[in-house]
């Protein structure tokens, strides 16, 4: 196959990938979009195999490895519960990162295959591109592993900070640039290996200071990194499919990070520098004083909701932890039978990754046209009878609007306090991830339901 024809095919798969993302603008077109993505991938893999013209032992190995990897992937994809999506995505990011590192190593050891020169005499431009690809790939790899461990609960979600942390990161960053510079001058193999090792270390150091509640930003950011790593390798291999995909994924992750930061009213650098939630001890202790709280049981809640004309459900990460989405939908079904109008309000940073709550509700067969984003539903709280807050906390805290001292001041919140009554399902009065007390607990119109989210929802359904 001629190089030109090959390039045309890569261009076609690049365009199909764009269409795959375009399909996600609405749930109706999304399935078709995914199909475009699969076709694009099949074309890219197919023409690459044909172009190598190697159908001997290597080809058999290739098929075996594809089947092994594919079966593992398919197995995971079918087995994974929807509540575990954040860890899955973090895990997949780490694989992209490591694959980028491996391809960069192959290109460094055997540059002739990719027309990059000869070992020890690799073209400078290619060397820079592959170093960047390898470095970003390695950072993505270890960073995603840490994110995975934190999300999976195998590692504490609280930020790990130590003095001089930012200084060390800065020094390592400078060393990385220096290594790339000397690598280009000397073509020394050891410099290339050191570059990878230091990048692996940087990935760990970048993610450990970031707390559990900031994971939506971290996942989006690592998504973006995996894209830039792919683009770096794409430049090295002079492959337009990889360059286009890398740019798409890179900008996609960057936009998601931006949306998540905006949802928390924090700057990107503030999140990256980390340590949030560790410094809020003072406000935590001040809330120790006893304030009156009204608490109720499932029957009270059922009574309130049955007699309401409209109810808005506010789900949060706690719903995912308690796996309460199916129980919640059953409760809503009973409410609808009683003629109550029900809708769902989703905060941009609810859950551990962008769109996490929407997937869980979709899994529980909640129609997506009953689920609304913050800006679309926030005005409706004033006209709603009951707000049912299940597993959310900080995103409803009115202190974000009133107290400039608060760490979440300025964060857009769901105005649940405007509804006639608020039902708050929570295990205890403990503060949320931001480590701050929620004023809403002590309001006149708030009824606290102290229980496991799933159990309480099931009990309410029974009393309806």
């Amino acid at each position, binding site marked *: 196959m001629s190089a030109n024809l090959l390039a045309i095919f890569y261009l076609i798969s690049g365009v199909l990938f764009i269409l795959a993302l375009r399909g996600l603008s609405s749930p109706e077109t999304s399935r078709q979009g995914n199909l475009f993505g699969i076709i694009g991938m099949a074309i890219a893999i197919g023409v690459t195999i044909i172009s190598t013209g190697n159908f001997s032992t290597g080809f058999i190995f290739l098929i075996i490895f594809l089947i092994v990897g594919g079966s593992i992937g398919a197995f995971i994809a079918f087995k994974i519960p929807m509540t575990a999506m954040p860890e899955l995505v973090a895990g997949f990011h780490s694989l992209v990162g490591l694959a980028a590192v491996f*391809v960069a190593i192959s290109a460094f050891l055997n540059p002739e295959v990719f027309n990059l020169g000869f070992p020890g005499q690799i073209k400078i431009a290619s060397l820079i591109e592959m170093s960047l690809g390898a470095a970003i790939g390695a950072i993505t790899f270890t960073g995603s592993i840490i994110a995975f461990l934190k999300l999976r609960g195998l590692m504490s979600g609280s930020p790990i900070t130590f003095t001089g942390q930012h200084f060390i990161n800065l020094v390592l960053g400078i060393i990385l640039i220096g290594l790339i510079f000397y690598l280009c001058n000397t073509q020394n193999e050891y410099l290339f290996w050191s570059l990878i090792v230091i990048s692996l270390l940087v990935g760990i150091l970048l993610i450990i200071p970031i707390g559990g509640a900031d994971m939506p930003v971290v996942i989006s950011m690592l998504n973006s990194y995996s894209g830039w790593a792919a683009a770096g390798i794409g430049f090295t291999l002079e492959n337009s499919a990889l360059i286009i995909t890398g740019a798409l994924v890179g900008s996609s992750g960057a936009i998601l990070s931006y949306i998540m930061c905006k949802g928390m009213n924090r700057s990107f650098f503030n999140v990256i520098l980390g340590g949030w939630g560790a410094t809020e001890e003072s406000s935590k202790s001040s809330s120790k004083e006893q304030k009156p709280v009204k608490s109720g049981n499932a029957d009270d809640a059922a009574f309130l909701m049955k007699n309401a004309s409209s109810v808005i459900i506010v789900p949060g990460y706690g719903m995912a932890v308690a796996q309460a989405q199916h129980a919640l939908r059953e409760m809503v079904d009973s409410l609808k039978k009683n003629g109550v109008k029900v809708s769902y309000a989703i905060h941009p940073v609810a859950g551990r990754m*962008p769109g996490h709550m929407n997937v869980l509700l979709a899994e529980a067969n909640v129609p997506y046209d009953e689920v609304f984003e913050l800006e679309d539903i926030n005005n409706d709280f004033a006209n709603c009878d009951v707000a049912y807050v299940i597993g959310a906390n900080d995103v409803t805290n009115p202190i974000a609007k009133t107290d400039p001292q608060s760490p979440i001041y300025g964060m857009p919140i769901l105005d649940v306090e405007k509804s006639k009554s608020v039902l708050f399902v929570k295990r205890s009065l403990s503060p949320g991830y931001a480590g701050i007390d929620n004023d809403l607990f002590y309001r006149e119109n708030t009824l606290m339901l102290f229980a496991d989210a799933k159990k309480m929802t099931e009990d309410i359904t029974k009393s309806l």
Partner: protein
Amino acid sequence: MEIDPFIFRLSIFILAIFVGYYVVWSVTPSLHTPLMSVTNAISSVIIVGAIVAALAGDSSNIFNTANIFGFLAIVLAAVNIFGGFLVTHRMLAMYKKKKKNK
């Protein structure tokens, strides 16, 4: 004077960033999780580099270090490609509209 082919690749890159920017802003927020899983799957197109590296030379070469790294990358990317597209498919199949006349 001839233009360096690098400039053409850079042009593709920059334009693709802009395409990505506009396309991703049009993605509905309720599909942000599938967006992440599908971008994950497509970024594994890095497998094309792995295939070229793994199949370099003839059959006596496949145990060279460079080729072995290629094969390892193939496994990793394959996990991602199949896992990413299938889990996206599984998620998207769950998004349903309200049944009419209910």
